């Protein structure tokens, strides 16, 4: 039997404090929106779409009772048949990203891959928030301008 002991990446993934020259740079977990709407697998798409729209979002993260990400509904999935259960409508097992990933790299990848949003989770899959491409790109640009101005 092997007892897994968490390492440095798990420490960072849990959003715990770090030191060093890169510690102050914005990370995915800093920019990800924790107020993203969430839903459960057994809800109907119509109900969820209404709630998500009322909150001013076009994406929703599907989680279980422990906050572990099970799926994702982006605008394409949210536009489906209202009677369908979330389980059938969602994009299952989406790629997730850790909170310590540099926002600049996420922005670059999200633009390259034309990805509108990306779920940020801890190492054990619990939702931290949804990183929106516009937020990531804006933060990366501000950082670049700030560093350009300082140099």
């Amino acid at each position, binding site marked *: 039997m092997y007892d897994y002991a968490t390492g440095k*990446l798990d420490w960072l993934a849990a959003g715990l404090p770090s030191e060093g020259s890169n510690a102050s740079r914005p990370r995915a977990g800093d920019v990800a929106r924790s107020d993203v709407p969430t839903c459960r697998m057994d809800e109907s798409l119509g109900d969820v779409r209404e709630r998500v729209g009322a909150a001013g979002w076009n994406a929703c993260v599907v989680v279980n009772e422990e906050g572990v990400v099970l799926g994702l509904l982006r605008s394409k999935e949210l536009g489906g048949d209202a009677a369908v259960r979330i389980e059938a409508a969602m*994009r299952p097992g*989406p*790629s997730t*990203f*850790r909170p*310590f*990933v*540099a926002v600049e*790299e*996420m922005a670059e*990848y999200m633009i*390259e*891959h*034309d*990805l509108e949003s990306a779920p940020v989770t801890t190492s054990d899959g619990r939702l931290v928030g949804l990183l929106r491409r516009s937020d990531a790109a804006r933060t990366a640009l501000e950082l670049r301008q700030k560093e350009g101005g300082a140099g």
Partner: protein
Amino acid sequence: MSEPKEAGTKCAHCGTSIECCEFCDESACQAAACFECVNEALGQAVPQPHTHGG
């Protein structure tokens, strides 16, 4: 015994056959990347040494 599933695309970084891009989950991604390459590029994992049997 079943045959391994036919992969849909290749990682643009290392050439590994993959079913879809591990960054955007799209099988038709022009810049498809495998799980290991995505995680290394984003610093989510550190490169692991190869394991040997002996």
